[in-house]
Every structure is written in C-alpha cells, then in structure tokens.
C-alpha cells in the first residue's frame, strides 16, 4: 500500500483513509463509525497542515480511546502510512498467553494409555525415590522430575496421572479445552467485558443503614419540624451502606490462573465500587483441604476450620474453580494434587463442611456447562450451586447469593 501524504485529505484521500479505518477494525481496535466521522470532521475543518506527526496525533486523539490500544494503533499507522510490517497483535497476545516453560508434547492415545499405568500410592513412592536420586535440573525426557516431559513428576508435562511439582499444568485430558478457546475467553471476558461484569457485580449488595448519623434525613426532618410547630428540627440518619460480607476462594496453580486473576480483579474492583462490609480472598489448588492460602503462591496459609470460625454463616462464599480433577483428589485421603498437602480428610468432606457453614454460596466455573458431566464436577455441584463464569452465569450467581 502506498503512503499518501497527510495533506491529501480530499475525496480520494478519504477513500484511502477508509481503508485505514477498516484496517483498524480488522486488527480488533474498537473504532466506531462515530469516531471515524469525528476524525473526518477534524480533517474537513482543516486542522491538519502537511505535518505527518500532527496528523498522527489528530488521528490517535479522535480514534483511540484507551492507552492499551496505542501500541496496536501505532503499528497500524506505520503499516498504512509508511509501509511497515502489518501488526501481529493477535499472534503476539497468543504467545504471551501461552508463555509456559516448554511446549506440551502432543501424545497419541496409545502413549497416553501406556503412561496410565501407575496408581497414586505407587506414584508417591516413586516420587520420593527419585527425589533422592535426582540432584540437578531437568527439562524434557520421561523419567526425571522437571518440566515439559512425560515423566509422571514435574510440571507442564503430560502424564495422565502425574504428581506436579510447582509450575503450571499443561494438558487437560477429559475436558479438551484448547488453548485457543481459553484465549478467546480471555479476550471477551477480561479485555472487552470487564465493565459489563462490573455492572453485574454492582447488584451484589445488601444496603442497610447503620453506623454514624452523617446524612440529613429530609423526610423525617420535615415531619419533625411540622410536629415541632414549624421550629426547625433536623433529623440525621446514617448513610446507606453495603452490609454484604464476601469470601472469595480461588483455584490457582494451573489452567485456572487467568480466571482466578480475572475474578480477583473483578471482585476487588467491585469492593472498591460498592464497598462490601468485609471482603476476603483466599487461594487453593484444585480442591479445598485443611488450609486455604492468602497468596497465590500458597505460602501463607490459614486453617480452613479457623476460616469457618472467623467468618459468620451469612458471609457470601464464592468459589472460582473448574471443579475438574482426578476423582481421588476429591474422594481419597492423601489425594491432594500437591504432594506436600497430605490431607487426612477428603476434599469432598472439606467442601461439605464449607457448604454446611456458609448458607449462601456459589461456584463459578469457567468450563462450559455442556462439559459438566465429569464426576468431580457433578459431585461438587451437589454441594455448591454451580454457575458458568460468563456474564449470564455471574448474573445468576449474584441473584442466587442475594436472594
């Protein structure tokens, strides 16, 4: 494409610029026709002299409304007006999204079946044995504890029944959620719909008046003044405040990380906007056991029993997780996915205790509803009313929580 001079804003120039408009739209910049007309109007008013820099500034000020998009706009601008390489924003974002230590190996059905030979106890023994044998870092391969291999130990690898050591989870076997699908969810939910979700979250409140009397209550003032034979009597009332207490439990340490981040950001924003009476956020990995954690790295723990003593039953409990795990993580003692979390009570029992304590609870699941046939999702769904982590699902969950 040739590089037209900025001064050629005649009819021919406008058609050329129209291609620029469609280029911006094609790469995903939310430029509306109204904004385009504003840009054309500015050109019509002769705001631009033959100075490309000012032309650029004018175009950016009228067409781009978020600094997040500046970079992409710059790429489009240089591409269109200076013949630079076309923007590769989509691929770039995908790369960032998938920045894992090593790519996940694509295994055939046969290979997966061959690996599916070890039971849980057997795995634990082998793990401890290999911990003793191994003394250096290991990536790839099929025996040592490391990243990206097919050994049952380590992280980012693909083994149907492996023990993970730190890092993030790679392949998911029963629910085939392709990386691409997760990425799309990220784009629509975080980038585009955050505002809509925040609007939905605003409904998460229960207004009540108590505390310091700092507002003039007009109705009662008039009433009291009238009763006082016209001598003014000001009646004060406490401002309306949100009384809701909210507890957020988030599944982290794997494919759930981005969703946990999204939800945590959303609720913090909601907390700032509507001011819950109390707001607490804790983390867990796959299933809740005897401890929940204040940080996503799961170093600063709080006993789950302590949590239930501390927070009253009317606290709204919202769990964010895929509820998708190996059945023994839910139903077996010592079944936790993290080796160090040797649970004597099953995950199922812990979830039941939470369910018995918190009267108003909801589970937000980023997995689409049609995949919820999995045994652990069904089992958890019996204790926690489950909702999809979408705009509609969030709305339903909030309705359920405030009912």
């Amino acid at each position, binding site marked *: 494409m040739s590089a037209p001079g900025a001064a050629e804003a005649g009819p021919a120039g406008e058609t050329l610029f129209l291609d620029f408009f469609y280029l911006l739209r094609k790469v995903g910049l939310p430029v509306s026709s109204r904004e385009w007309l504003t840009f054309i109007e500015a050109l019509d008013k002769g705001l631009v002299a033959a100075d490309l820099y000012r032309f650029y500034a*004018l175009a950016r000020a009228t067409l781009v409304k978020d600094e997040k998009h500046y970079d992409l706009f710059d790429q489009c601008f240089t591409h269109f007006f200076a013949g630079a390489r076309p923007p590769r924003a989509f691929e770039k974002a995908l790369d960032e999204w998938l920045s894992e230590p090593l790519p996940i190996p694509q295994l055939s059905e046969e290979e997966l079946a061959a690996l599916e030979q070890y039971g849980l106890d057997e795995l634990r023994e082998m793990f401890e044995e290999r911990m003793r044998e191994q003394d250096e870092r290991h990536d790839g391969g099929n025996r040592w504890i490391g990243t990206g291999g097919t050994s049952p130990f380590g992280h980012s690898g693909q083994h149907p029944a492996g023990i993970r050591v730190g890092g993030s989870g790679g392949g998911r076997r029963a629910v085939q959620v392709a990386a691409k699908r997760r990425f799309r969810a990220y784009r629509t939910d975080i980038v585009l719909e955050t505002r809509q979700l925040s609007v939905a979250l605003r409904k998460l409140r229960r207004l009540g008046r108590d505390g310091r009397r700092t507002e003039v209550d007009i109705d009662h003032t008039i009433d009291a003044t009238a009763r006082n034979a016209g001598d003014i009597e000001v009646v004060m009332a406490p401002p309306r405040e949100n009384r809701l207490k909210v507890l957020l439990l988030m599944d982290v340490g794997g494919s759930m990380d981005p969703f946990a981040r999204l939800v945590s950001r959303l609720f913090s924003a909601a907390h700032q906007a509507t001011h819950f009476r109390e707001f607490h956020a804790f983390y867990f990995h796959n299933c809740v056991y005897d401890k929940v954690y204040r940080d996503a790295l799961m170093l600063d723990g709080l006993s789950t029993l302590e949590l239930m003593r501390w927070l009253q039953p009317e606290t709204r409990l919202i769990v964010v997780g895929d509820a998708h795990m190996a059945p023994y993580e839910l139903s077996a003692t010592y079944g936790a996915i993290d080796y160090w979390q040797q649970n004597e009570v099953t995950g199922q029992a812990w979830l039941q205790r939470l369910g018995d304590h918190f009267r108003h609870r909801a589970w937000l699941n980023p997995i689409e509803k049609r995949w919820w046939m999995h045994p652990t999702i069904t089992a958890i769904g019996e204790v926690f009313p489950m909702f999809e982590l979408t705009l509609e699902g969030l709305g339903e969950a909030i309705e359920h929580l405030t009912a």
Partner: protein
Amino acid sequence: MFANFTGTADYIASIELQEAVNVALALQRPLLVKGEPGTGKTLLAEAVAQALDRPLFTWHVKSTSRAQDGLYVYDAVQRLHDSRFEDRDVDDIRQYIRFGGLGQSFLSPDPSVVLIDEIDKADLEFPNDLLHELDRMSFTVLETGDRHEATHRPLVIITSNNEKELPDAFLRRCIFHFIAFPDEALMARIVKVHHPAVRETLVQEAIARFYWLRTLPELRKRPSTSELIDWIGALVKGGVDPDQLAERVPYLGTLIKKEQDLDTLARFEARRRR
C-alpha cells in the same frame, strides 16, 4: 482560525497533547485525559485556561457525586431553615439553587474551560448520566423549570485515573489523550520550569536517581513528577551535594509515601551494600 494551544511557560505539552486540545476546541468535544497520578492531568485545565485567557470552572468528582451535582444543587434545608424567619422570601426558589462547576461554565457569558476532575471516582453509571448535558450543553432546573443553554460551548476537560473503565457511549464522544510518563529529557525541561535556578549537576543526578527508583519492580507506588519536583526543592533547601545522591537518598519521605515501600527500599539498600 482556531485558538491554538501550545502549552504555557509553566506547562510543557507534547505535540500529541497540543493536538488533542486543539481538536477538542475545534470540534467542541470533551477532552478526556488519562495518565499516571502526578503527570499533570489536572494542571492541564489550568494551563489551557491561562493560555486561551478563558475563565476556569472546576468540578471535583467524589465517590458520592451524582451527575446533577455538577449542574446545580437545590438547598432544601436552607430554605426550610429560612422559612422560620421573615427576612428572606422563601417563595423565590431561585436563591436556593447553587450551580456546580459545569452549570457555571454553561452560564458563563464568555467562552470558558471547565474541568471535571477524576470522573472515575464516581459511580459506574455517572459518565452516562452526563452524556445529554455534554452533547447539548444545556440543562433544566427541575425545581424552577428554568432552562439554561450555554451561549458559548465551554471546553470540557475530563480527567480519569483509570480506577474504573468508562462506558463506551461516553468514550465515543470524547477526544482522548493519555499523558505518558515523561522521558528523562522532557523531565529535565519540566524540572527547569519549576526550579530554574538549580545547578545542572544536581538536576541530572536527582533525575537519574528518580528514574532508578521508578524501575524497582517491588515498589507499590512509584514516585511521580510532582514528587520529584518537591524532592528537588527539598534537596536545594537542604543544601545537598549532588555527589551524595549516588550513595543515599536524602528526604526520602518526599518521594516514597508508603511504609512498605520504605521497607523494601531499606532492604534493597542493605543488599546493595553487602
């Protein structure tokens, strides 16, 4: 031709910012300005008013602000209070209508600049409630039925700290500019404007130290331009020798405002000395 804003002696504006102001002026659209705290969003309105020789009206938005507050407030309690005495005619509601910053700018007989500061502090729906008034530049006082229309459409400058996302319908109507954090060269010019008499070496050293602080990823709140300017002021008053700056950071309290950050920095320094 159009009025042209090129910054003032005290306010250095980039080409992009100048262009954004001029487009907003020419097209009579609101100008939305975002940027890190301390990059001079609020000062922009003052600078523009000064450069164009227009009166400035301001409306500082709070978390409890309603869209109508910027136009006018009806003081019912004052009227009720006055009703007990004979000295004022309480039938005249107009004397109990107080105009807000936006309302005043509409009523102003001369072209004016109005600053709606920190629009993101208010409720999520707040910007949408203003759409009509910003489009038409007119409003009606419900209590009296008076309709006020702007004789000159004021230049509306809106600032946002990015605490909340603004609605699309609102964004589409605005001209937008994001004030990027100044680079070291521009920062040197900005410092010169505020401290013209300070020695070059001190400014250089202070700026170098300041940008180093900003690169520390652990800091919760990174120091901003206005804090740098205060800090240099303190360094001058304290007679600090520029060479000392590489070793330690005197008057740290003017730059770092969070206790955690002071701890982080102390730990960092301790590690560096070892």
